[in-house]
């Protein structure tokens, strides 16, 4: 469903160094790695928000170029860590901005909102609030609703739970997993938490300094780390609780 080939990107220094990544239809891939390894940059390139220096991106079999960019973006829902909601619009207006632009029938839109309200487990009375009146968890649920409004086959998420406090985060992780399963989306989720990556992803891609160093199910990464860095990364993420 998503196929990125040989992506390179250099700012002051090389951020992506020939990365290739494939996400099969209906699967969830967790992209994980330390800060600054290039995972968010890769996500933005797949979304078409920044251009790659070289390499190509294919979405649902279509190669991305400037001509089909807007259309391909609408096949992907995008959720970021925080602050992605439009501050001057209510939650509902955030949801309907794109459907109004596409002139979708209002009954269909209402039906869709109702369905997503149930799916994302949000109180529909909250939808008339502006983002500043929503808690972090509520805002992320609205962000997810907005990403799913057009029922895109793909979801791209950049640390969607990164700034949510632990209790709510746990609840949202469960909700997300069941949503992914239920909707049968192809999902790429960026996180720096190995536990979350393992919990949500069918497969994990581990990045280090602009390259993917290992891909596969969590068991394989723990049992057969590809190199010393992977081993260190896995060990560093073990909870201090395990030692008690």
């Amino acid at each position: 469903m998503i196929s990125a080939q040989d992506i390179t990107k250099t700012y002051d220094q090389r951020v992506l160094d020939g990365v290739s990544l494939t996400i099969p239809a209906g699967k969830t891939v967790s992209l994980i790695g330390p800060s600054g390894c290039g995972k968010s940059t890769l996500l933005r390139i797949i979304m078409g928000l920044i251009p790659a220096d070289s390499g190509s991106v294919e979405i649902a079999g279509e190669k991305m170029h400037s001509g089909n960019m807007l259309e391909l973006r609408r096949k992907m829902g995008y959720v970021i860590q925080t602050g992605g909601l439009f501050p001057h619009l209510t939650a509902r207006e955030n949801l309907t901005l794109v459907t109004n632009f596409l002139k979708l029938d209002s009954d269909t839109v209402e039906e869709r909102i109702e369905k997503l309200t149930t799916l994302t487990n949000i109180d529909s009375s909250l939808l008339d609030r502006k983002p500043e009146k929503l808690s972090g968890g509520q805002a992320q649920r609205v962000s997810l609703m907005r990403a799913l409004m057009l029922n895109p086959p793909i979801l791209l998420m950049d640390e969607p739970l990164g700034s949510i406090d632990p209790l709510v985060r746990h609840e949202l992780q469960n909700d997300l997993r069941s949503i992914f399963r239920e909707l049968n989306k192809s999902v790429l989720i960026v996180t720096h938490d190995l536990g979350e990556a393992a919990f949500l992803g069918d497969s994990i891609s581990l990045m280090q300094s602009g390259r993917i160093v290992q891909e596969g199910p969590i068991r394989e990464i723990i049992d057969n780390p590809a190199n010393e860095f992977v081993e260190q990364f896995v060990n560093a993420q073990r909870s201090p609780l395990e030692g008690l």
Partner: protein
Amino acid sequence: MEKMNWIPVLLLLLLAKSCATVSPVAAQESIKIGTKAFTESVILGELLEQSIESEGADAVLFKQLGGTRILWSALRNREIDLYPDYTGTIIEEILAGQEISNTEQLRQALRDLGIRMSRPLGFNNTYALGMKREKAESLGIQTMSDLREHPELTFGFSNEFMDRRDGWPGIQSEYGLNPRRVNGLEHALAYRGLEAGSIDVIDLYSTDPEIEYYNLAILEDDLNFFPDYEAVVLYREGMDDPVVNAITRFEGAISQQEMIAMNKQVKIDRLADEAVASSFLKDTFKIETEFSRSGFTERILRHTVDHLYLVVISLGLAILMAIPLGVLAVKVSWLETAVLGTVGIMQTIPSLALLVFMIPIFGIGALPAMAALFLYSLLPIVRNTHAGIKAIPMPVMESARALGLPDSLILRKIELPIAIPSILAGIKTSAVINVGVATLGALIGAGGYGQPILTGIRLDSIPLILEGAVPAALLAMLVQGLFDLIERKIT
């Protein structure tokens, strides 16, 4: 929610209002008379206006347009049809460098430029230097040469006199004077300074009634430095006979004493310019003229309409221009410095200079004033539009683009609405500045609250100055309050 809708609606309202108000610059067919900034010139202008109107022609008087250069170029550019001037001024200031030794040569030189000159009106308003009589007597000063011995005296000269060839620079070299302090100031204020003792020597017009009123001593021009300043009327060629007759009837008709008397009636007895001119026409030519001395409320109303007309149109156009410029500065990175730099430089030009720069392009009246105000209003709006959009957090912009919305829609639905408080603050700043700067528009014939201020300075009348200054301040506060209200409404 269509948050943006109020902008076009507001603009339409403003434009509709300004179209409905009649331009202070009247119909095109009228004969346009200019005057310099001092009372005698204004009285002569009133005489000419009433005289021309008594011949059945339409005339408009632009009082206090400025100094010789502004009036001369306005006449050359056909912005005005006539104005009163003085032979010495024309020779020394306008045609400087040409060898002109008599009136006939002067007439011919002007004729070559398409300008006609009336015969002298009958009085000679020469320059002179004057002091308080007691002070001059106690120091034993009788002639201008005597000033050489007193470098400790403070000189206060009108600004035009300060840099005229036949003014201070000429006197200084001719008489070899080296006073310690020489200040430029408005002529009407010089008498006050003299009275208060803050200046000792001033330039005078020999028809100034203050000479007698303040008991001043005129210092003898013992080196015969000052030329004759015979009052004449300059007018463009090709005017209709009745109009020319209305001008030439004043030839030889106003004596020195009569001019001094008229100046006194306005400056000291505080009669209205138009009333003094009207009674002169009646006494001398048996011409009955109608002039309407408008009442206080009517004047305030007219000045308010003129002022709003300047402010509303210039600000409206500035908003229409500045918001797109601000957006452009955000979107086209190589234009950012150019746009912000250019409007920034515009702001650094002194407002008075900017007004004068507009004269060669737009002539005199409301148009050049609006152009200057327009340029002046750009910066705060451009800068705040630019800053307001730039300040939108990256996650918001990324989310908007990720939704697959086109850039134009993002601009309309996301960027501009989020930037509105900032843009509005910019418009508020521009509006308040604009209301203040517009008072200077009166200097180039645009009317408004500056008109009574200017006349008040000329006549040394505090009530008249306040008649312009107080409404201008109130309007600025009103504008501020109005925008504060709108700001509170939308946030």
